[in-house]
């Protein structure tokens, strides 16, 4: 029980350069899949991903479906071994044996799944779910002690009265309550890092906010480092400090949330932000809001045979020749912002980039 004594870190944006709790450097994960024919092909699900999770900070990972968000989360959770790259927990590189990390790793890093019903075994009571981690990681024995700890956990996720919930089966709980149990279970191991893989997308809109507020509380009160994976860039903005955008297995842009959302530097980020519904956008003609040129946008690329160069180039309105051949380097744009786009590359040998598209809308 160390987390509770740590004071909440300061407001977003003012992070000191401390050591990240969990850091993934240049992590790549390929899956070998066999088609029905038996031919092997490699799915490049995550390529060269780098991410830092700091205490008390929330990083949001947004991107379209199939962009590798879940894979990255599972890499960080120790489910998969990276094909290459390194994951470092509190300065110690993580080792994997036969596809599994040591149990100790799970004590520090916990993953929360998208579907709160699916991630609770319908045959076990809430109590069982909470007692297992207590027994496994803290050697808690004895009924009284277990009871006390279970009650504590339930109260932390605001499932009160705790006694009433402890003996329920998952199907007796609503979606939001289930997700709270899932979070409580993750908290039971007293992790330092919580990875949420779309933890609210299966919940009813009306209760999503409760969950976001709960996560926010855990971050501030317990100083957890949080990775929040989502489709919904608006909720990312609501909860997180930093945003990282993924596209086709690669990270394309990152930085403090307000800046990234208000002023996207990568054309994909821009497309994403523009496509997201925002009732607050103000009065606008519907036809103008939905003016996407469907034929021109094309399809997301195959991860088995990704486009050469920048993976976004086939859909990018600003694609240049160089985009088609060379992968763009990561360009630091100051204020912790960065983008992986030739438009922002500072390589002098390259042609002058087109005017920053992001500026046009401002």
């Amino acid at each position, binding site marked *: 029980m160390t987390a509770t004594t740590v004071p909440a870190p300061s407001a977003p944006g003012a992070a000191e350069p401390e050591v990240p709790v969990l850091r993934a450097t240049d992590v790549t994960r390929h899956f070998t899949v066999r088609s029905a024919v038996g031919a092997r092909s490699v799915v490049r699900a995550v390529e060269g991903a780098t991410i830092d999770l700091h205490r008390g900070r929330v990083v949001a990972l947004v991107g379209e479906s199939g962009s590798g968000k879940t894979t990255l989360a599972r890499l960080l959770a120790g489910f998969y071994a990276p094909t290459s790259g390194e994951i470092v927990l509190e300065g110690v590189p993580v080792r994997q044996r036969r596809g599994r990390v040591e149990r100790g790793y799970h004590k520090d890093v916990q993953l929360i799944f998208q579907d709160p019903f699916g991630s609770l075994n319908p045959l076990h009571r809430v109590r069982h779910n909470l007692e297992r981690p207590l027994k496994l990681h803290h050697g808690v024995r004895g009924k009284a002690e277990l009871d006390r700890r279970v009650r504590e956990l339930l109260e932390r996720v605001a499932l009160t009265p705790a006694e009433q919930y402890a003996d329920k089966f998952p199907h007796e709980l609503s979606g939001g309550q289930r997700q709270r149990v899932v979070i409580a279970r993750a908290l039971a191991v007293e992790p330092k890092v919580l990875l949420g893989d779309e933890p609210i997308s299966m919940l009813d809109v009306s209760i999503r906010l409760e969950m976001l507020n709960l996560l926010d509380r855990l971050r501030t009160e317990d100083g957890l480092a949080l990775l929040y994976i989502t489709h919904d860039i608006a*909720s990312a903005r609501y909860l997180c400090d930093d945003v990282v955008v993924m596209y086709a297995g690669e990270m394309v842009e990152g930085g403090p949330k307000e800046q990234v959302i208000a002023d996207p530097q990568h054309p994909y980020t821009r497309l994403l932000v523009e496509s997201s*519904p925002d009732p607050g956008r103000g009065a606008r003609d519907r036809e103008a809001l939905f003016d*996407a040129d469907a034929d021109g946008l094309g399809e997301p690329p195959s991860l088995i045979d990704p486009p050469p160069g920048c993976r976004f180039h086939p859909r990018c309105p600003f694609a240049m020749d160089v985009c088609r051949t060379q992968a763009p380097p990561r360009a630091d744009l100051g204020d912790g912002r960065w983008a992986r786009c030739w438009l922002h590359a500072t390589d002098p040998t390259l042609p002058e980039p087109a005017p920053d598209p992001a500026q046009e809308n401002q």
Partner: protein
Amino acid sequence: MVAQFVPDTDRSDAGTTSAREAGGDVLHVSGLTVEYVTGGDPVRACADVTFTLRRGEILGVAGESGSGKSTLITALTRLQRPPAVTTAGSIVFHPRDGGPAVDLVTASPKTLRALRWTSLSIVLQSAMDALNPVMRLGAQFADALRTHDRTLSKDDAWARAAELLATVGISGDRARSYPHELSGGMRQRASIALALACGPELVVMDEPTTAVDVVMQRQILAQVLRLRRTLGFAVVFVTHDLSLLLELADRIAIMYAGRIVELGTARELYDDPLHPYTRGLRDSFPPLHAPLTRLTGIPGTPPDLRRPPSGCPFHPRCPRRFEGCDAHLPELVTSGRSDVGGHAVACRLHDPTVRPETTAGGPA
């Protein structure tokens, strides 16, 4: 049962009504009630639903999971299966060509079959599941086309399928593909093209874009809007994403526990939601650009439709409930303030006959 539109009158002077509505309404739904008959208590998944759909209009239906949206859609299209049973109400369809109005609830299977796809088509949530996995796309188009136009040759049907696919940005030679050979977005667009194959007057869409991501969603909806502009069909669009509807729909119906609790234009609902539930729903979507405030959503859980709460079904979760809400079921009435179609709400706060002392503050 309050019906603003009484089918009897429509029947009695069908001719004049049709003439009057020719440019106006395509569908009059009134008092529609659907129940799931299971062993125990029936689940009333649609209760007394009444609305009018105008020609060429996009009507959005939003609500939480389990509020009866899909039930409404299948009832509208008469596609519900046991144990769902329509127990009351009427769905009167007014054909564009001025033909006699048809009540879909009582129409014979033959009449219905003739109306299907030529007048009334549907797009389902998951195109992967909605397309027959073992038939080529073209064949699934040809199936529909040739059923309703017996003179069409097979080759012509396939050619038409290719054209239709082209209208949603899929190259025509893809007609020879099987569904699994297309990406998710393409499949969804293909099933929209399929829905438009016979030039329907009304397309109902049950969460057609939940399975695709935002970029693709916008792309698909843009296409729907474009096609609607040229073909002039009306759309009933069901989703739980109110923020999307606010941008997309002309009018929006909010469902709660099988009932329409509020019905108005997108503007009205965004700027001035009358029902506390609508307000809560609207405030459940954090803004993308506006300054962030702490949002709370709607505490509590939706009711069990097997045992709905007495009175207003929302009252257990309602922050503004007052005495009597747990006893009196509010009816959907058009609020005086509204313009054109009428901004209707089913809430005792807005019932002129009921005046709670606590409403002085108005909406927060």
